[in-house]
């Protein structure tokens, strides 16, 4: 009888322990998704002349995104970010910095193309196109990607010769490298990573962004 009681106790405790552990793992997994931080990362909010800034130049609230044009998560966020940009255009500054990852073969090419479009004043339009149509070029060969991006340039009415020259220019390459270095220094480990006034932001939806931005705008 005692033996049976012992066995029941043993196995109930084992099952119970396992359930608790699995619960703990679920909690841990959810917690580790949270990116937000209260630490202000120095240097993130400081703008450099090469930065692509959208919005009010004198704004006291700066939202920085480190992104990779070939990253599906960034493309998913692009819609939300666009909403934020449009809604807060006159009240915040939005900065996009390139953080191309090595596993994305075409990410750098996309960054260079966007920079080239920027020289002709159409950075944000090109940036939006790249994300909207990511599936069209993300998995293509390098030469196909070039053609597709040239198609976007044409769509935006850019001078194609100048576009190609700027895209391949050393200056462009160095600009993207500088963005990436800035991200590494800031501790970016994945894309997209957002910093609001230097603090890493954990925002999933437009409402999340709105809540944090509004809070900052409200403080004098």
């Amino acid at each position, binding site marked *: 009888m005692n033996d049976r009681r012992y*066995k029941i106790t*043993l196995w109930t405790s*084992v099952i119970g322990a*396992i359930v608790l*552990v*699995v619960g703990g*793992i*679920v909690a*841990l*997994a*959810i917690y580790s*998704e949270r990116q937000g931080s209260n630490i202000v990362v120095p240097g993130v909010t400081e703008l450099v002349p090469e930065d692509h800034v959208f919005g009010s130049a004198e704004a006291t609230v700066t939202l920085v995104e480190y992104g*990779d044009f070939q*990253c*599906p*998560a*960034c493309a*998913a966020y692009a819609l939300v970010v666009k909403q934020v940009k449009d809604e807060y255009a006159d009240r915040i500054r939005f900065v996009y910095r390139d953080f191309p*990852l*090595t*596993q*994305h073969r075409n990410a750098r090419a996309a960054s260079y193309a966007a920079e080239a479009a920027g020289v002709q004043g159409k950075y944000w339009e090109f940036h939006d196109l790249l994300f909207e149509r990511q599936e069209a070029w993300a998995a293509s060969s390098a030469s196909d990607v070039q053609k597709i991006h040239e198609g976007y340039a044409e769509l935006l009415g850019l001078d194609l010769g100048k576009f190609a020259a700027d895209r391949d220019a050393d200056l462009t390459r160095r600009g993207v490298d500088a963005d990436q270095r800035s991200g590494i220094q800031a501790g*970016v*480990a*994945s*894309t*997209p*990573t957002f910093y609001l006034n230097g603090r890493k932001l954990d925002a999933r939806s437009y409402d999340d962004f709105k809540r944090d931005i509004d809070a900052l705008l409200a403080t004098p």
Partner: protein
Amino acid sequence: MLAVSAVGFLDATYLTVQHYLKGIPPCTINGCEVVLTSGYATVYGIPIALAGSAYYLTLLLGGIYFLDSRSVRVFRWFALCTVMGLAVSFVLVGLQLFVIKALCLYCMISAVTSTTLFILGMAVLNSSRYGARPLPKVPPADLR
């Protein structure tokens, strides 16, 4: 051995939970998500991590049962399971290295635990106490 199974279980379960939680995973510097979102991460929609989790859980429960019952048969069965675990691990690591060309840290942790369990299993199988090696034919001294 229980400890190693437990580690494997935690690791595989974490991956499984992540799989079911994530909408679109962010792209990481180490490329972990490339492995986890590749076609090889699931079989007919079931994440391999879940199978791994079940495997480690079985070993864990088997180990506890063995401690409780001291059954040699259970132990041998345990050791044989680790062979299968090792084989699967080999295939998955090979896929990462040669096909997907990206490594996922948690997957590699599982490979380490599978290999360790296999080595432990084989070591004990070879020992005369629980192992398959036949006992010496000479009767013990007090019976002679």
